[in-house]
């Protein structure tokens, strides 16, 4: 009897799909559990809080409320596939898995199903070639931009020459961490610095041998592509060998409070890239306080508000909402389909005026998306950790990446993908 009830419940849960709902479905593929939860939780909170804000303050987008669904991936590709399968029939407007591994699995699937995929600052870099990857977007910046910005920053620091310098790349040994290697190799040839690649196996709790090697190599700079617990461990190890923290640059996924706070004083001066502003000094945070936090609607524990990765989740949600708005304008009606959403993303334009209207003045570099360029501006800033004040502060203005070189590499990679998968590049 009990078993049949449970079975019936399960069956009902599986069959139940909403009928013609007048809302906009924004699925969330989050990870609040597992070794990558320190990064997954703030991003998920920021993403959800912004969508809640839009619902509470504006009544949704174009008069239609946003409906969110949450699925726990635990940063695991098999669970990611399960999550995607569970939402794909429910006209998802935009999928953001926050995992490069899951992204690689979803690229062929979303292309087949016609679901827009936005991998903001992660995923497959060559997806910036919109003609080959019509359903995949990675604006405003990608890993190759990150690598290029880091090197440009170092060039600036060293009087435009890195000749004879030694730079170590310490990376998460996965598709994510290996992503910047081709660009860095290319840049190393161009600027004459020596590149040493040191992988760290996932999840990266144990890195003493890697840092022993770094100590032996005596590099001038260390660049890190880490995520989850790997970041804090690496910064701790760097502090242990007294590596100068301002010569240690993390990618934007290695620059959250959760990475530096556990290290305490030792992390002071650690730098990381970021493609958006930091801190809560933006008018939008007042609205979040008023409409989300004070109404008891904050996602998660509500303790991540204003952290670096929270801001990124908020930024991702903002871009999604703006794309949906653009899509509604283009389509002429509010109830947009995933295909119309894709058109909106491709026509997305983020200007300084628009950012100011949204309560996020100068939060990001202005950019336009087009059919040819799904990759945005590629510009990023450097943020530095102040252990006394416990805050990140921006120490540079926007640094442009070498889009000429990256475009070249991306075109070659996209062409190879198109040939492998019988895709004829072209605008939709």
């Amino acid at each position: 009897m009990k078993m049949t009830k449970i079975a019936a419940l399960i069956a009902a849960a599986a069959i139940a799909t909403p009928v013609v709902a007048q809302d906009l479905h924004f699925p969330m593929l989050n990870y609040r559990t597992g070794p990558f939860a320190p990064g997954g939780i703030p991003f998920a909170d920021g993403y959800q809080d912004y969508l809640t804000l839009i619902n509470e303050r504006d009544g949704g987008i174009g008069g239609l409320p946003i409906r969110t669904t949450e699925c726990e991936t635990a940063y695991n590709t098999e669970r990611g596939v399960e999550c995607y399968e569970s939402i794909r029939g429910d006209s998802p407007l935009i999928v953001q898995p926050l995992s490069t591994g899951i992204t690689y699995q979803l690229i062929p699937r979303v292309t087949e199903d016609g679901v827009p995929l936005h991998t903001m600052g992660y995923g497959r870099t060559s997806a910036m070639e919109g003609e080959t990857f019509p359903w995949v977007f990675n604006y405003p910046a990608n890993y190759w931009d990150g690598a290029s910005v880091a090197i440009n920053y170092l060039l600036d620091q060293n009087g435009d020459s890195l000749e004879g310098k030694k730079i170590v790349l310490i990376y998460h040994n996965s598709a994510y961490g290996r992503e910047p290697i081709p660009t860095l190799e290319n840049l190393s040839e161009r600027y004459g610095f020596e590149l040493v690649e040191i992988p760290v196996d996932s999840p990266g709790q144990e890195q003493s041998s890697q840092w022993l090697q770094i100590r032996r190599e005596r590099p001038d700079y260390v660049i890190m592509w880490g995520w989850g617990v790997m970041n804090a461990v690496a910064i701790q190890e760097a502090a242990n060998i007294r590596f100068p923290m301002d010569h240690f640059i993390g990618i934007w996924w290695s620059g959250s409070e959760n990475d530096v706070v556990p290290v305490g004083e030792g992390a002071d001066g650690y730098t990381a890239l970021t493609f958006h502003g930091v801190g809560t000094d933006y008018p939008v945070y007042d609205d979040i306080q008023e409409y989300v936090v004070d109404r008891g609607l904050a996602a998660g524990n509500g303790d991540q508000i204003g952290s670096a990765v929270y801001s990124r989740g908020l930024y991702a949600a903002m871009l999604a909402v703006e794309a949906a708005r653009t899509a509604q304008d283009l389509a002429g009606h509010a109830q947009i389909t995933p295909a119309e959403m894709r058109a909106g993303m491709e026509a997305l334009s983020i200007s300084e005026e628009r950012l100011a209207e949204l309560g996020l003045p100068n939060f990001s570099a202005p950019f336009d998306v087009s059919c040819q360029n799904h990759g945005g501006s590629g510009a990023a800033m450097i943020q530095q950790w102040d252990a006394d004040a416990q805050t990140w502060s921006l120490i540079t203005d926007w640094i442009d990446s070498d889009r000429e070189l990256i475009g070249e590499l991306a075109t070659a990679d996209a062409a190879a993908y198109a040939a492998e998968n019988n895709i004829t590049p072209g605008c939709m």
Partner: protein
Amino acid sequence: MLYREAGDFKTSYASDNQTFPIRFDRTAYWVVIAVAFLLVPMVLTDYWANSIVIPFLIYVIAALGLNILIGYTGLLSLGTAAFMAVGAYSTFKLTTAFPEMPIYIVFVLSGLVTAAVGVLFGLPSLKIKGFYLAVATLAAQFFLIWLFTRYGWFFNYSSTGQISMPERTMFGVTITGASASSTAVYFTCLIFTVAMAWLARNMTRGTLGRTWMAIRDMDIAAEIIGVNPLIAKLSSFAVSSFFVGVAGALTFAVYLGAVEAGEAFGINKSFLVLFMVIIGGLGSILGSFLGAAFLVVLPVLLKLLLVDGLGWPSDLARHLEIMIIGALIIIVLIAEPHGMAALWRTMKEKLRLWPFPH
């Protein structure tokens, strides 16, 4: 009446030695096969196929393979995921090198490549056993994954080390790639699972299986009665790795579509398959099915119940799921240390006596 040997007369050796001596079992077997091949494809939705049924069938193959090694031959292995990776990377290399080769042949060849690698890593089993062998196979786990992430040749020098399955067809039907229908994928997995379960069942009933079991029960005694330990142990490694390799090939080609060795075939996966075998029942074909169902299907069903059914937060559900599965593992092992298959055996004994137990 229902479940009786009585009245079921065997008139030949063949019928006396058949797999299912009881008529009820035979009927049930054919009913299950008929349902799996005829009824399930008609009611299967994409979601159920891709997130429950297909992974279940693939893990059954892997569990069968490991069960041959651990359950039938008594050789402990912790390298299952690495052998799955060998199957996956063989499929990738074969199908990109010979795009015209029928994909089913590629899967079988990948299994054979894995068998060869398995024999290589099985060599230490001639000298060491038990936990020491487990450590030796653990070396395979780390070495092979390192190899696949280190050397570009294995992933065709793609910039990220990911391997992606191109689209392949069989008899004109798309089997791999995103455009493959879930029915086609389901049938692919089903055909392989049924064929390999049949193979495993018959191998373990025959001479080969009996030599394995003799080695498992007491290797010195087995040697004295004329079992060659070299052949028995290495054949066990070969057959086991063949199964695991095919499972890896299917995981990569039809289930995930893109994998990265360290992530998809990490040590966690080795343990997952090991737990399937232990919970399902060592030395039992049915146990492999039950174990895979327990560890693959149950978590998804729990998620459906807690998140979609009861509307609980997904992270809470995930934490509860870990706790519930963990508790169930302990309960099952306390209630039935020989696995779920032993539970079924007890039930069968009871059924035979029913309704007049002594």
